[in-house]
């Protein structure tokens, strides 16, 4: 009878392969995601892409002066106030004292807006000497960086909210110099802060707590993006549609297909994990 020991010479050859060979091998497949789960989880990515596209369209309209900065500032400010009140009173069930916290938030808003107003003239001249092509290329790259490093709810090493927000703000600053006036730059900065810094907060909350709301929001944002892109030119609309379809439908399908090939093998050769009592 062959035994798995080394201290005794056994009556089998050295290269004998026993029936029990590799019996300690554990093939752990780990978590496998269904197609619905994958579709649902990629709606976060779609939302972020849509937000970026909406921001770019707003910028394009500001440059061509079809949109006035006062309209942008006032309408976005109103939206922020409405969403803030709605979010704080109805959705956030954690003891949210509107008065005290609201006053603190108002203080920080006032501080931010005054700083932004002060710096918008500096911002406008910051990248003015750089050629338009470079500015557009740089901001495109920065928006891509923002999309790659954004926190979509997955626990991955690549996720870095800091890099993501910094890249988006940097892109905003780059684009700000292409605008005709300081007020335009101030409006762009405000809308940039709202889209990239403030909007992820309620969107993340909805993603975690209200799946139906997440789907509705995604559909809404996609429709708005398509309308805005359509108002531009057809190539943009086509491009956006292809990207969104790929991201939200083709990529999850491929991911689920690839899962079948995933193997995580473990056995007695693994390095022991130290559990400190």
């Amino acid at each position, binding site marked *: 009878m062959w035994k798995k020991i080394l*201290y005794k010479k056994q009556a089998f050859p*050295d*290269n004998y392969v026993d029936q029990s060979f590799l019996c300690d091998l554990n093939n752990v497949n780990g978590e496998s995601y269904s197609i619905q789960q994958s579709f649902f989880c990629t709606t976060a990515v779609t939302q972020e892409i849509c937000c970026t596209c909406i921001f770019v369209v707003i910028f394009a309209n500001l440059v061509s002066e079809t949109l006035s900065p006062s309209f942008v500032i006032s309408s976005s400010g109103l939206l922020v106030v409405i969403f803030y009140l709605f979010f704080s009173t109805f959705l956030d069930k954690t003891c949210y004292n509107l008065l005290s916290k609201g006053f603190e938030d108002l203080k920080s808003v006032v501080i931010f807006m005054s700083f932004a107003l002060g710096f918008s003239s500096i911002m406008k001249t910051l990248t003015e000497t750089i050629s338009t092509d470079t500015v557009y290329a740089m901001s495109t790259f920065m928006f891509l960086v923002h999309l790659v490093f954004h926190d979509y709810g997955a626990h991955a090493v690549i996720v870095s909210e800091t890099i993501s927000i910094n890249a988006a703000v940097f892109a905003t600053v780059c684009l700000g110099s292409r605008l005709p006036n300081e007020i335009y730059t101030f409006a762009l900065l405000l809308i940039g802060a709202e889209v990239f810094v403030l909007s992820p907060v309620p969107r993340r909350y909805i993603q975690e707590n209200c799946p139906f709301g997440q789907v509705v929001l995604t559909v809404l944002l996609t429709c708005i993006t398509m309308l805005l892109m359509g108002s531009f030119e057809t190539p943009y609309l086509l491009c956006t549609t292809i990207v969104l379809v790929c991201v939200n439908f083709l990529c999850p399908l491929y991911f689920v297909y690839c899962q079948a090939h995933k193997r995580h093998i473990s056995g007695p*050769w693994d390095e022991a994990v130290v559990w400190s009592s």
Partner: protein
Amino acid sequence: MLLEKQKEYKSRKVIKKKQIRRHSICMVSDFFYPNMGGVESHIYQLSQCLLARGHKVIVITHAYGNRKGIRYMTSGLKVYYLPLLVIYNQCTLPTLFSTLPLLRNIFIREKVTVVHGHSAFSALALESVFHANTMGIKTVFTDHSLFGFADASAIITNKLLQMALILCNHVICVSHVGKENTVLRAKVRPSLVSVIPNAVDTTIFTPDPSKRNPDNVTIVVISRLVYRKGVDLLAGVIPILCKDYPQVHFLIGGEGPKRIDLEEVRERHQLQDRVTMLGAVDHNKVRDVLVCGDIFLNASLTEAFCMSIVEAAACGLQVVSTKVGGVPEVLPPDLVWLTEPSIAEGEHTRNHIYYVERNDKMFGKCRASIPAYTEIFENQK
């Protein structure tokens, strides 16, 4: 009648000559003297045994500092120290083609018939297997370690190993777990892999109960003080044991980046007189340190074949080890007590100290068991 006898004698002589066909064996590895370790001593001792059998053995390795060219060691062991670029941890840069001219020259010059590569971490060994196979020389590869599958370095190393082992005539692993691991990593046929465990030189590692301190129970730990040797476990267990058993003393030999953790534990719990740190122990002094102890503790997190526990058992110590890798296969259950790799393992070590205490009291019984240990290892030779 005489003619027949003469014919028989001649034919026997011819058969004898055929049986002791003299090979020219070339050992290749990045790891050799002056670097000290398990693989290095394995290569050296294997070479000495083959030389004793009448074969010709040469060793090829990379240059260590000023040590370049050809050096000769005991029994005429010729060592080639090749001037190759060393990148990390005594391993050469894997270029494949830059080693071809040198290796081919050496193989032709020495009329090599068998090339034996050691250690999957050694790029030189893997490349030599390629080149030897191209030249029609028989190749053997010995894998000394266990490796994972999931991280980036593991994926690259496993692929390189797979490419090299396709060309090997035979593969040797040091334990059954090691064989399973190698077969999975390199996708090699299980029947191509032999399991040949390492051996200990029992003429050097002999017990000496007179060197022990009868008042204390001394626990000896000799290993490189790195994470994978379980220094964190050790740091957790030492204060617990020292608190519960006032007669327990620790003797820790070895150097490494984790030495600072043990020093810290020693300072924090005021165990300066109970825990002795010896620092790096010379290879020829290891036996002298081992015979001072009663128990040998091995807390490794992963081990293909733990040589140190065999050396300790040969010196008459009771071995306590973590149940990882190939350790359960190495020694019989009465010579080694296995525990799980956790701090709670301290619980088990308590029982073992109790047993050794009991043995110490029955000093006569302890002395009698030592000849039994040496007998087991003599028979295995």
